[in-house]
């Protein structure tokens, strides 16, 4: 463990290790996010994730935002455990009918001002699951949506870009 910690001290941070275009993207995102976030919310934005019927693909990529490569928290963005702590709801999935009430209650429990981000293709309009007896067909059918991030699933960089454009609105 000691040797790993020592390695960690002397190795270059992983956040700069990703492939070149990604690194440039992320660095640019970091600058923009800093300015915009400071203006709006004093350097911090708390995000509450709600899975409203996704296949779990989006969750895997949302998880990845927290790893050493993307290190979401360096932008002042963080995931919180309760909607009552949140500024942003990150909603994935086509919204199953069985999740509709839980989504509404989570939305109502989130204090204003709040933003809703629909994450992934099926959160936009139900995607491949549209037309099923068991889904509503997109987050905006249930609660007002401020932004869609497309992708199946959107990769972590797309998720970061999405958060940025939300704050620049």
């Amino acid at each position: 463990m000691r040797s790993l910690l020592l390695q960690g001290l002397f190795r270059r941070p992983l956040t700069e290790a990703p492939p070149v275009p990604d690194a440039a993207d992320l660095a640019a995102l970091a600058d923009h996010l800093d300015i915009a976030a400071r203006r709006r919310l004093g350097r911090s934005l708390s995000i509450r994730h709600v899975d409203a019927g996704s296949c779990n693909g989006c969750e895997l990529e949302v998880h990845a935002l927290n790893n050493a490569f993307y290190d979401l928290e360096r932008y002042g963005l963080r995931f919180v455990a309760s909607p009552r702590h949140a500024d942003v709801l990150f909603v994935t999935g086509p919204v199953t009918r069985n999740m509709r009430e839980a989504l509404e209650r989570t939305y109502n429990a989130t204090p204003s001002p709040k933003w809703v981000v629909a994450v992934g293709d099926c959160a936009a309009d139900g995607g491949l699951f549209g037309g099923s007896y068991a889904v509503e067909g997109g987050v905006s059918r249930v609660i007002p949506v401020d932004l869609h991030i497309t992708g199946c699933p959107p990769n972590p960089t797309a998720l970061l870009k999405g958060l940025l454009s939300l704050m620049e609105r």
Partner: protein
Amino acid sequence: MAVLSDILSQGVPVPAHRPWPRVMVSARLWKLAAQGLADGHWSLLDLSAEAAAVHMTLFEERTTSVAVISLDCPKGRFPSVGSVHAPAIRLERTIQDLFGLIADGAVDTRPWMDHGVWGVRHPLGEVTEPAGESAGYAFLAAEGESLHRIPVGPVHAGIIEPGHFRFTANGETVVRLEERLGYVHRGIEGLMRGADIGRAARLAGRVSGDSTVCYALAFARAAEVAVDVDVPARAHWLRALMAEMERLANHLGDIGAICNDAAFAFMHAHCGVLRERVLRAADTCFGHRLMRDCIVPGGMAVDLDDPGVAVIDALMAEIRRRFPALVKIYDNTASLQDRTVGAGTLDPALAQRFAAGGFVGRASGRLFDARRMIPYAPYGQLRFEVPLLVEGDVNARVWIRIREVEQSLALIDQILAAMPAGDICTGLPAGGGEGMALVEGFRGDVLVSLRLGESGKIERCRMRDPSWFQWPLLEAVIEGNIVADFPLCNKSFNCSYAGHDL
């Protein structure tokens, strides 16, 4: 009667069902088969239905044979399997919700997938209007002094799929946990009906995001066997490569996440880096981090070029360089072992009865791996071990994952060394048929049963996630543990919500 072939010989064979036999049976034989399950002669792989028939898929360990028995139920009823064999209970409740077929003598008739908000009842059977406001869900009782209940979910405190857990605890000690699932039910089986093969394959790849390769593979194999076509050899090897990369990514993520739930974030950070490296290699080689829509019926949609091989070689070297140190830390950290050793112990007898697949079964002495027991190309030509432990605790489930990471590394080396050149895709010929496939995903065996009509459209597609037989076991292992150990036990099982709810 304790031999599966005896039951099969008494039924009426259904022609063109591949690769395993399917027979129509009488209610008497159906009951005999259920009793055979209860007596442990074979294990239940699936219990499913269509509008007026039910199907039971059985696995006989002694002969490593799979067979399906089907029972017509013109009156909408069939003899309950769950009344003698508990693993069938939730499957029967689902059949009742979706198809409206009643299991005679069922021990639990509460709805499972149907939460009363679909606007229809029995959407896949004889559709009817809902009967009006449904009564509240009756959770099972736990009686005694000083008990309190803790409801959790469906919206959890982390980035997790939705499901509801109802704990009854005495102080810190859990005396009963009851799960309520179905929140992620998207009606995929319904969407499959009438879909063309391309759309159906994309749907199959979206049953469970962490197993997208496994589901696409199982679906493709079922479709190919239904129309009796073999894909080019190179496609088989590419598929195995993707399946092992998916296993690698998930196991690495899980090992870290389990440690994180024991408040050991260091492992989480390091395993997260390794997982990300696998995903990035997949993205570079195949154009998608989760390798979604890469496997298609008839072969592959993407090939691997020489630069891609170099990327995967570098990835293997990186994991081999970093992973052993992490394993050592896991093994040598007393505070971590204090949480994982002896926590959430699954009794081997229970694992056997529920035919628990994947690391859940293999950490509790059940030696089953579809790649080994019912091998499919190219695993017959590859050398690998199936790790097995009997302790059944969180620690054992972590160790199985560690060993499987090592096996996947070795498998990927062999695949890259021996992958044949050539075509990667052949068309799927027109025509119908019935096919099944059993594929070992990272979580366990995924079963797909498929019937293709002559027009090439899907008439019936049933996909059974390994979680069906793992979720009930989680309820069993948590009993007597403290509430604070639930996340740890839960993560060590890592059952799928989306795969189960479908």
